[in-house]
């Protein structure tokens, strides 16, 4: 039996309403998206929804107490809360540069967590 899944694309503010038609897990058609990224988004949402992990970690000796971090690549949505919890246990050390790896291979996803800004040392 053919089944229709509806998704609202989150790639850009256009928020395309995308329809994905599938039969026994085989994707037959993706429509309603206005760009290629939308098609990829709908397929990911159907197979394995992913998001960029975003949170903060404590940082020692920095001009600010918190360092914003993100995953290098999107991670499965279901991992989000566990990852944030894991990252709440660590402490980075200033100075860091935007893009520095702060945590390697988070929860065995193969994906690194990186700093999302420069943070200099407190004088």
């Amino acid at each position, binding site marked *: 039996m053919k089944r229709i899944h509806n998704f609202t694309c989150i790639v850009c503010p256009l928020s395309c309403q995308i329809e994905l038609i599938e039969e026994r897990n085989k994707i037959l058609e993706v429509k309603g998206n206005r760009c290629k990224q939308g098609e990829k988004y709908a397929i990911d949402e159907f197979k394995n929804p992913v998001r960029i992990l975003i949170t903060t970690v404590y940082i020692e000796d920095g001009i600010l107490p918190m360092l914003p971090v993100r995953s290098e690549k999107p991670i499965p949505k279901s991992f989000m809360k566990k990852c*944030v919890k894991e990252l709440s246990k660590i402490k980075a050390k200033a100075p860091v540069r935007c893009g520095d790896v702060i945590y390697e291979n988070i929860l065995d996803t193969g994906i690194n967590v990186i700093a*999302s800004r420069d943070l200099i040392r407190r004088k």
Partner: protein
Amino acid sequence: MRADIVVIGGGPAGLASAVSAYKEGIKDVLIIERDMELGGILPQCIHDGFGNFIFGEMLTGPEYAQRYINELKKTEIKIKLNTMVLEIDSNKRIIAVNSKDGLLEIEAKAIILAMGCRERTRAQILIPGERPSGIYTAGTAQRYINIEGMMPGKKIVILGSGDVGLIMARRFTLEGAEVEGVYEIMPNPGGLTRNVVQCLEDYDIPLYLSHTITNIEGRRRVEGVTVAKVDSKMKPIKETERFIPCDTVILSVGLIPENELSKKAEVKMDPRTGGPIVDERMETSIPGIFACGNVVHVHDLVDDVSEAAEVSGKGAAEYIAGKLKERKIPINVKNGRNVRYIVPQIIRAEKFDKDIKFYLRVKEIEKNTRIVVSSNEKEIFEKKERIVRPPEMIKLNLSPEILNKITGNELTIEVKK
């Protein structure tokens, strides 16, 4: 002290305008910023979704700011941090203060206003009840969590579904707090659809449309709120009232351009945007005073802020070089059917040699529409839009070819069925 261009505010608008003026050949540029670092609100917007249009990739707020800060470091643009501008006047004289230099008086050839906006608070939406601690605007809560590393509460009710409120619903949830729900007085969400999806639906946070808070209870700390459904006139329906225990109320009820300085300089304001009236180069009613970003009107996306800021930087550089040729009577851009506001509000250029970008917001949701630009009742441009929504800004790019079809001193933009 003197400077060719003084940019007031070191957020995304200030950064992009300063860099663009510099690239146009004005080397003597000074940015004045009241915070301890550049970036404006971006350093606390740690989520992704920035830069899709400008850089073609998804960046977080701090990363987006970092790109411009790195760009700035390659220039000789001067920066004064921890410095508050107290006054500007129509002669482009600036009074500022900081703890190192004391009182500063700066004479500028051109000024770019880039002060951004601020959040509406409880006082502006008149929620009755007690005044306990535990009531924050969404941006304040965001600063506490993302910059200071402190949690404002454990059980949260959010009033208003603006983007910052939606983002904070997710942030609170990820940090272990319980978000009871988001209550929106309007029948439609205030923020972008993508934020409703990835911030609320992803985490099963309920969104109650046509609902509001009618009372806040608690003597020292918030103990709970009363919520109610509202009728079509936005009046709370008494029978639908229910009490929700919580320790924190987050307000995400809109942003207002921050124009105290503009008003002091007697720049002409547009009551529809809450910002200065600007022309296509982002020049205000006072020659040599330009404005860009959220101080002009509140944008949805930082990419649009940077883009408009570049225009203002170029404009200020052209002004100093004396390159501008203006028509005697400016063209008045009129709001037609279902249009809440349009920026720019006037056009001053004598000849059209480059595109002009118009930003507009509608009053009401409408489907299958045409955005029509006309001059002297003759249609000169149209753009089809499947759906128009007040929270989503519409952009129109008009080429010189289209602009040359303007006759007289009037241009109307309207939404047609």
